[in-house]
């Protein structure tokens, strides 16, 4: 609730004196950030279901299970819609000027965000069967044999391939709908790509409702194995980080940060992912893409970096009772903050290198993006700890 209100306030501050054209541009950034956010957060919101025992007990119908998933995503969608309302109507200078255009922008926002949410739900709710096939080596065997034959290994667990593919697809399709809409000169027709996207997402998801129980249980079983069973974690192809490598963290939190990093690196090849994100950014700069593209990519970079670290709040990695015994919840929040800022220097260097060699990026932008990352890291640390240690403290302590 609090981070959402902070973000909405920041958006209001950004948009209160903007003209209509600038509002439309800000909305496009918002829609792209929402697509990136949904692409990463949806599997974590949906699976493994924290109420599984209860669900098995009351045995909801396929339609109820579908609604259960929809409700889980609803809060994020509502924040998105509230943000679209702020961008559209948050005008302190001329509140009623361009009212029709503002309403059209808000309606476009609702359609776009709903389409992205339904598409993300469709992709991730139906992912169980193919993921299990990849996880057990029944699919993708040729790919791994080819990689083995040239002495390469994959940085991630095979079962994660469909998830990565869906993450990229949701981000790409969501962002492309924004780009296509932006390319349409007629203001009314610009809504069309989102309407088509919404129709497609609703159609695909609607076809699954009748057998949603099969999709639900299989996807949940897969993610339950993936997220909680160390046997399906990333193959340990590299040494875990040593305690000495965490020298930059104050000693009070160093041990906690170290245990979180070691565990996270076993679930996610963070270093390689960060390298890939930075290389792609430089490629976008080198290709001379518009600011919306490489700026959008940095939004994605920051969201991805922070959200990929979310497994550290799962009970499998951070058992609440054990954590409670180790140190207070506030200290865990600080530890998570340092964990999240581990790659802030990499972001700073990535943007600084772009500023050094290209005029497309200003030095002011270097500090702006760094500050954005530190802010998101702090929010993310608070959220992760709130859902784990603080929740435990509220309930039992």
């Amino acid at each position, binding site marked *: 609730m609090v981070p959402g209100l902070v973000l909405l306030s920041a958006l209001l501050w950004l948009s209160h004196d903007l003209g209509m054209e600038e509002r439309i541009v800000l909305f496009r950034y918002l829609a792209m950030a929402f697509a990136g956010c949904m692409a990463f957060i949806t599997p974590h919101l949906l699976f493994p279901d*924290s*109420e*599984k*025992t*209860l669900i*098995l*007990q*009351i*045995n*909801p*119908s*396929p339609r109820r*299970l579908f609604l259960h998933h929809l409700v889980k995503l609803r809060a994020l969608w509502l924040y998105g819609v509230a943000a679209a309302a702020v961008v559209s109507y948050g005008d302190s200078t001329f509140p009623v000027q361009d009212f029709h255009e503002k309403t059209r922008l808000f309606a476009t926002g609702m359609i776009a965000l709903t389409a992205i949410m339904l598409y993300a739900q469709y992709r991730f709710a139906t992912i*169980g069967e193919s993921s*299990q096939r990849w*996880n*057990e*080596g029944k699919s993708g065997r040729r790919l791994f044999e080819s990689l083995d034959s040239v002495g390469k290994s994959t940085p991630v*667990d*095979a*079962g994660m391939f469909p998830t990565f593919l869906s993450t990229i697809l949701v981000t790409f399709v969501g962002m492309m709908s924004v780009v296509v809409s932006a390319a349409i000169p007629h203001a009314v027709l610009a809504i069309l790509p989102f309407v088509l996207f919404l129709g497609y997402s609703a159609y695909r998801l609607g076809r699954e409702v009748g*057998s949603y*129980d*099969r999709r*639900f*249980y*299989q996807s*949940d*079983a*897969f993610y*339950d*194995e993936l997220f909680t*069973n160390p*046997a*399906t974690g990333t193959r340990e192809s590299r040494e875990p980080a040593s305690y000495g490598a965490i020298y930059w963290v104050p000693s009070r939190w160093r041990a906690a940060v170290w245990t979180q990093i070691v565990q996270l690196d076993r679930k996610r090849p963070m270093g390689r992912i960060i390298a890939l994100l930075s290389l792609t950014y430089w490629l976008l700069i080198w290709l001379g893409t518009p600011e919306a593209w490489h700026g959008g990519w940095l939004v994605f970079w920051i969201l991805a970096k922070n959200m990929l670290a979310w497994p550290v709040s799962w009970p499998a990695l951070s058992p609440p009772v054990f954590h409670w015994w180790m140190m207070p919840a506030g200290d865990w929040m600080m530890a998570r903050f340092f964990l999240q800022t581990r790659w802030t220097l990499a972001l700073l260097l990535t943007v600084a290198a772009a500023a050094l060699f290209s005029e497309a990026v200003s030095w002011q932008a270097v500090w702006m993006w760094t500050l954005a990352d530190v802010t998101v890291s702090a929010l993310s640390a608070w959220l992760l700890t709130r859902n784990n240690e603080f929740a435990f403290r509220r*309930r*039992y302590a």
Partner: protein
Amino acid sequence: MSEFLNVENLSKRYGTGPMILSGMNHHFRKGTATGLIGANGSGKTTFLRLVSITAYPTEGTITFLGEPIYDAPHRFLHHIGIVTDATDLPAYLSANELMEWTLRARKKWHDDESPRHMDELFGRLHFDERRENLIGTYSSGMLQKTMLACSLITQPEIILLDEPFRALDESSKKASLELLNEYKSNGGTILVSSHLRRSLAKLCDDYITFPVKEGS
């Protein structure tokens, strides 16, 4: 082959790790109790997860009345009761409310009879007035009684129990065994995993020893 609950060539591995179950075949008869026994990590819990559709097999399938259970989980789960060492029950409900919800959700609630059945069942399980307290305050033994009561009251055709006696005191254990034997004599089928062999002996007609040899 009878069509009640059949395990057909069932195999399960996690990721590309070793096989936990390999080519398992078994036919569970109606009105019997089968004990799942074996060392830690031998596959008992994995097997129960497969039957409760919280895991999916690598190969093979399980059929209930001739239909693969993974094709229509909702239909199969309607016939199932599950007792695990759950820690994720809703903390702000009482056991009574959870049971009422279970019955209503499964369309088995009757205004006149259900409250009486609930009282009777809780009474037989020696679950005193603390069942009116919130679940978040329960001990592990009370949680297990809650799960067992919720499963039994829906009168399922099959009950899956994973270590159901572990947290129970002697009198509750005795009461649970009595209830389960009664359930079995009324035609219910039980699959129970436990290390407490003496308790199992008072309930089970048949045993499966894990790890299961391929094809057995």
